[in-house]
């Protein structure tokens, strides 16, 4: 670098030094500003290796998240299915409950049927007349029966209280006339009750019986409590 010793003109040297200073200082300042103002953490300014590391990391995280998402989605599907199953089961149970309530007598019901009115004639109406009637109605296929507005259930009892005076049904005292309503096939009910000789109408001697077939018979629900104390469901194996 320093082999030659040439005497250069002072003016030329001055100009050259001036230019060199301009170039050096301007470039240095530019670099200073760039370094100062550049955000090293910004993704555009990261070096390739850093970018690679970051990319790998994000990829991993993305995959993890994807996995989690899938898991959650699967769980959601499962829950949905469960809910649907439950809904179906609930519907079934609801239907069954309604049917049971209908059968047991816990709901007001209506339908075609007959109304049988018993009144005292030569003799008073006795409990066995009513029992006989209920029995015969059931034989004829009655689905629901009531006596003077009291629903007749499997455990309903009908007994005499005193002599020809009144009858007790489920602890409620009834008096003549007894209006027995039954829901079922009205023609079949009427036919069975009116059978020659063996029908209830023929057998009831001494009391007044009238049978009317109706298109709409309304029977109220059972008003008392239905307690089960002793029986339990036997599990079939």
């Amino acid at each position, binding site marked *: 670098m320093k082999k030659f010793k040439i005497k250069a003109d002072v003016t030329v040297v*001055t100009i050259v030094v001036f230019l*060199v*200073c*301009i170039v050096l200082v301007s470039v*240095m300042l530019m*670099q200073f*500003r760039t370094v100062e103002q*550049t955000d090293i953490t910004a993704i555009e300014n990261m070096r390739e290796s850093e970018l690679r590391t970051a990319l790998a990391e994000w990829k991993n995280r993305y995959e993890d998240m994807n996995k989690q998402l899938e898991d959650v989605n699967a769980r959601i599907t499962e829950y949905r299915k469960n809910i649907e199953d439950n809904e179906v089961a609930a519907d079934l149970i609801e239907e069954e409950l309604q049917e049971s309530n209908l059968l047991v007598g816990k709901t007001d019901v209506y339908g075609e049927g007959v109304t049988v009115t018993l009144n005292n004639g030569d003799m008073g109406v006795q409990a066995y007349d009513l029992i006989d009637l209920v029995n015969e109605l059931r034989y004829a296929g009655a689905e629901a029966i009531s006596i003077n507005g009291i629903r007749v259930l499997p455990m309903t009892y009908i007994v005499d209280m005193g002599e020809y005076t009144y009858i007790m049904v489920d602890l409620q005292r009834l008096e003549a006339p007894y209006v027995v309503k039954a829901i079922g096939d009205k023609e079949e009910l009427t036919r069975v009750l009116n059978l020659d000789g063996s029908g209830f109408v023929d057998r009831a001697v001494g009391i007044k019986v009238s049978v009317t077939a109706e298109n709409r018979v309304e029977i109220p629900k059972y008003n008392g409590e239905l307690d089960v104390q002793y029986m339990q469901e036997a599990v079939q194996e």
Partner: protein
Amino acid sequence: MIFIAIILGCIVGALIGVNMPMISYTYSGYLAIAIIAALDTVFGGIASTLKKNFDLKIFVSGFFGNAILAILLTYLGQKLNVDIYLAAIVVFVGRMFNNLGIIRRYYIEKFSEKKKDTKKEEQEQVENSEEEKQN
């Protein structure tokens, strides 16, 4: 004369540098190497001035040539996946320290001689003026 040129050049360069647009961060690495090379040449020039063997052609060619060569080497290093810019930095900074050492020694010797022998002062001043003439 030459000091005025240096100061003026610094001021004008600062003004230009402030108003220049920012360059992309990707290329700032090359620029840094170029600046180091240029600084090395400047210190080399100062040292050679003190040694009285300053050559303008060599100075100018070293100033630009070294900068461009450093940039090219850095670029090549990136293509080869070898950090050549490290070697350039080591060489340039080493030489910078070398030249700074020469400059420092020169002024320390001058200062101590001044203190020792006031008689030689005149002679040194003559030497200084000669140097300035040479520059």
